[in-house]
């Protein structure tokens, strides 16, 4: 599970057993090509000369900050709400579990724009819950930064839930049982055993959710519109820029890319120091 030592005497390393087989190397190379070529294309096409001007544009900084803020907030929301849901799907037994599991995949399949429409239908001024929220809590979600977080959480949630549920399923339930014999309640067992054992899965789920939230466009723009400072995240800014200057959009995308990949690389390498690194 977690914490396999760098050099293992007793534990399996899986690394001491020969060369990487070409049957894996060749397809992996194609995968890399598919991922890297478009990036190269972007780099080639980007109007580098305008980079300084773009970088110092306050609207770009504003959009980038808003994006990082909302994506991180959405990730937290997904973790707080999604991990319990994943646990429920993986470990508890109740009627309607099938339906619930199908429900989780809904935002995955919904084209994001339709997701935005659905959010409006739910939380909009005339939506099924929107009116109630407005009347009782004075909470209006559309066209607000909070609404951006809601939209991003909605689309990112399934990624987290599915990843965590998978990890919980592969985690050995005998440890949960054993923890119970020590008097740990189900909640304590969850915190002290189940979750730590599923940590890699939770982590990759969080990465997926964060990245999905960061790149989220359709649901956000439909649910929240696009206004600088409150709802115009980087993807929305990029889309807006595209109307006048296609190349500028590329440059902004690269900025978003560099920032987010740098953050991810930093965090991942810190948290996921791997068995054979």
């Amino acid at each position, binding site marked *: 599970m977690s914490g396999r030592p760098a050099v293992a005497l007793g534990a399996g390393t899986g690394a001491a057993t020969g060369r990487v087989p070409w049957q894996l190397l060749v397809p992996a190379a194609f995968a890399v090509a598919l991922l890297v070529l478009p990036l190269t294309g972007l780099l080639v096409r980007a109007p580098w000369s305008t980079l300084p001007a773009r970088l110092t544009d306050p609207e770009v900084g504003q959009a980038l900050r808003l994006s990082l803020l909302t994506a991180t907030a959405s990730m937290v929301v997904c973790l707080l709400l999604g991990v319990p849901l994943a646990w429920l799907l993986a470990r508890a037994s109740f009627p309607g579990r099938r339906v619930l599991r199908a429900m989780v995949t809904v935002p995955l399949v919904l084209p994001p724009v339709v997701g935005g429409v659905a959010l409006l239908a739910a939380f909009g001024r005339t939506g099924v819950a929107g009116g109630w929220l407005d009347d009782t809590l004075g909470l209006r979600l559309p066209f607000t930064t909070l609404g951006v977080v809601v939209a991003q959480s909605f689309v990112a949630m399934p990624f987290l839930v599915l990843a965590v549920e998978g990890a919980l399923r592969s985690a050995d339930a005998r440890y949960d049982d054993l923890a119970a014999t020590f008097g740990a309640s189900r909640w304590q067992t969850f915190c002290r055993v189940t979750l*730590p054992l599923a940590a890699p899965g939770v982590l990759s789920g969080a990465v997926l959710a964060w990245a999905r939230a960061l790149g989220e466009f359709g649901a956000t723009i439909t649910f929240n519109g696009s206004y600088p400072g409150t709802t115009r995240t980087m993807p929305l800014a990029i889309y807006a820029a595209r109307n006048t200057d296609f190349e500028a959009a590329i440059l902004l995308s690269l900025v978003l890319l560099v920032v987010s990949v740098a953050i991810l690389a930093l965090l991942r390498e810190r948290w996921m120091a791997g068995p054979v690194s």
Partner: protein
Amino acid sequence: MTRPGPLDAHLVTAPPRGTGAFTLDVRLAAGVGEVVAVLGPNGAGKSTALRMLAGLHPLSAGHVRLGGRSLEEPGRSIRVPAQRRGVGLVPQESLLFPHLRVRDQVAFGLRHRGADRAEARRESTGWLERTGLGELADRRPSELSGGQARRVAIVRALAARPALLLLDEPLAALDVRAVLELRSFLRHHLAHVGVPTVLVTHDALDALVLADVVVVLDAGRVEQAGRPAEVAGRPRSAHVAALVGLNLVRGTSAGHLVTMTSGTDGTGGTGEPAQVVTATEQHGDVFCCWAPGAVSVHGQRPEGSPRNVWRGEITGMTPHGDIVRLEVAGPVSLLADVTPAAVAELDLAPAAPVWVSVKATEVTVYPA
């Protein structure tokens, strides 16, 4: 935690669907401070019984009572979940939590018995040092040897001060000195804390040294139960006979003559029904047992006093310290202990034909 109280359990569970397995139906009782040793062949249901006591596998009937409190009773829809039973389990596979260091393994149980974090770790360190594991406190399970992991699992269970202790082959994988130490530690500790204990083991010595009661399982049922010396002296199954190193046959007795219905010593008898002459009188279904040392081996059919004389063929020879243990197959298949001198003199070798004799007075006979 609570004052120790006696265990009284009747464990019944249907086999998992799809497998041709047996129904488990076992009664276990252990007084305060008593150790019940559960013996039995592989797959007899020992670990399953422990899991049922711990609340990890539901009973389909019967009951589990501990210190007068009913922990489970399907008939009355009572089922106390595992976390409120206060049992301490050493599972057969150790199952150290993969993400916790040794110190935290032990502290885990302490915390859920009410200690705060710092206190639990301090107490845990104390336990580890007292049991000679202090050096390993900062290791992760993946950095332990098999035996080290086993010891940590035992300490973890003991430290949590359970109301019922369940040990599944606790001494397997331990080295000799650790076995000796732990055996004597357990003996003193268990007597001292007075917790009823169920101990699964494959080692006769564990049962004899540690247990107050021995329960022998086979295929999910109790084959024999009683005081260790009683069980060891009058085995009622091939498993126990092999465990204590006795020859055992079953038959129908008419006075002093037992006609064998099954001969058993681990190699499997064949041929016409043999007869065993006994010194004590018995009638009906009986077991006969005798020690391998009571068997004499001859090159020719022996003359003289021994009343039980059979033909046989040597199928195995194992040196055992000062003696050689022979496996002899014949109408009565048995184990015989002879001296190396006798081996040389009689020119014994595998496949050699021999005669074996047992004096009637050496045969213990008791109702089946």
